[in-house]
């Protein structure tokens, strides 16, 4: 009799076996309080030692927006999009949610090796917690963003509320990205070295600081490519909803919904497949 038969006869199950996807997701859902608490605790811990504490959540992106706005405002001259300050604030604030979710999500397994090796819980909790953490930080940023828009002379409209479903989709999208990056980093640590470059490239190519139509008027083919660029779609939808005089094709909602759902599902499955791998030393 083999040990496996012996174990089966005595109703023993293999330890550490990856559960089927539905029961995996159920286990992960049961840990939602932990995910939320971990996200909240990390934010509190990271700001505890600063004098200005939680204020840094909004000060940092504000300074970023000021710097990029000033530099690119001068560089672009007449090619500036209309209502440039509001344009930049929306771009920088929303892009921050994506870039931090990606870079921190990538480190969520490798950076928590001690936790992964000492407690058993569905590992998906860690990257999801990172995205939740960034979502929690986005909330005050959005509030401040709307205040800036008011101060800079944009009249409030009902369409501002559409930012909420957009953020929900964006969260799905970022979770998918974080899950994929988290697993890739486990296989290849070197990815954390290249990710800052990737985020910077995306930052400068996603229309955070410039109007794609104005800059690429000479290349209509390139402009057409941007119709399928998810980050560009998020920013276009947000600007269209918040600002006057900026419009976007309604199909962007559909495109970005597809992007978000596909990336989220792909991310969950991709992450789950390697569940047994995450505890290993490297």
């Amino acid at each position, binding site marked *: *009799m*083999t*040990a*496996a038969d*012996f*174990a089966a006869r*005595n*109703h*023993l*199950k*293999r*330890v*550490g076996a990856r559960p089927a996807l539905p029961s995996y997701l159920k286990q992960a859902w*049961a*840990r939602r*309080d*932990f995910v939320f*608490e*971990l996200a909240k*605790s*990390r934010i*509190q*811990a*990271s700001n*505890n*030692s600063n004098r200005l504490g939680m204020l840094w959540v909004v000060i940092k992106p504000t300074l970023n927006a000021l710097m990029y706005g000033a530099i690119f405002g001068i560089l672009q001259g007449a090619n500036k999009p209309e209502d440039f300050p509001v344009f930049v604030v929306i771009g920088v604030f929303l892009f921050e949610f994506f870039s931090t979710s990606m870079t921190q999500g990538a480190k969520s397994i490798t950076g*928590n090796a*001690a*936790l*992964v*090796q*000492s*407690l*058993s*819980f569905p590992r998906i909790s860690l990257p999801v917690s990172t995205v939740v953490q960034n979502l929690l930080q986005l909330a005050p940023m959005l509030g401040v963003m709307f205040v800036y828009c008011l101060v800079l002379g944009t009249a409030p409209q009902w369409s501002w509320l559409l930012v909420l479903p957009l953020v929900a989709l964006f969260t799905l999208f970022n979770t998918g990205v974080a899950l994929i990056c988290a697993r890739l980093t486990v296989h290849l640590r070197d990815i954390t070295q290249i990710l800052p470059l990737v985020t910077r490239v995306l930052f400068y190519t996603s229309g955070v600081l410039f109007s794609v139509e104005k800059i690429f008027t000479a290349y209509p083919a390139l402009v057409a490519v941007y119709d399928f660029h998810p980050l560009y779609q998020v920013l276009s939808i947000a600007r269209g909803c918040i600002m006057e005089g900026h419009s976007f094709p309604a199909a962007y909602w559909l495109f970005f919904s597809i992007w978000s759902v596909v990336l989220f599902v792909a991310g969950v499955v991709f992450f789950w497949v390697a569940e*047994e*791998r995450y*505890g*290993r*030393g*490297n």
Partner: protein
Amino acid sequence: MAEVTNFDDMLRREPGRGGDGPAPRHMSGQAPGAGGDAPDRPADSAPAGSAPAQSGPSARRPVVVVDDLHVKYKVYSSGKAAGAAANRKLFTRTRGLREVHAVRGVSFTAYENESIGIIGSNGSGKSTLMRTIVGLTPPASGAVYASSRPNLLGVGAALIPDLSGDKNITLGGLALGYTRKEVEALREEIVSFAELEDFIDLPMKTYSSGMSARLKFAIAASKQHEILIVDEALAVGDARFRQRSEARIREIRENAGTVFLVSHSMKSILDTCNRVIWINKGVLEMDGDPATVVRAYKESKK
């Protein structure tokens, strides 16, 4: 060694402190041979009085089966120690990549209500074996089967030093799998067990090492387990707290079905366990009666 001796004194006095009586110091009637034939071991030699719940030889229900377990690590080393690797250039793909074969074909079966001591010198693979049993480190080959998921006693890694002890109780409790409600119900008990009533709202990084060890232990020990692994966790805090934590471990042990105790203190192994497994360089060297195995282990160290 003074520390350990002290700890042993605690252990010796502990049985007198109430509870269900002392754990058996010396077991008889259970001396399976060393080696990896665990699954085929005759299931008739139930240890006499290993636990109050023991009802007879037929009740020896296996709860953990470890089957020809191998665990390997791949580690990036400096390259020097890897012999041939030292000659290679910086960018060759195998730069300093060493494979550590930490556990080499360990097999045994643990039965309900056993207290199994795991002994072996530093780096012999004890902790790796335990982490594999709880499913945290995946095996390279072989498998571990268990009636329910074994648990390591410990929660330290989930806590955040910048946060108050109180918040860490919430975080640690949730990490252990409690619901918020259960954490609230246990909070007071955890605080009073850790004896941190006056400091619970201070950040954990301001605690002394003994205080934070107490808090970690109190959180981790609040949970009941069917199969529990204690990795040198007994020796935390000052003498008085050790005594209390030892009592708590006994309590958990009596409620838990099966306990693995990893320790370097032979005294506490002999006091607590009714079976001992000796791991040497990743191989199961000996498995059986505590007195016999411990004697053989001590012989080998001379």
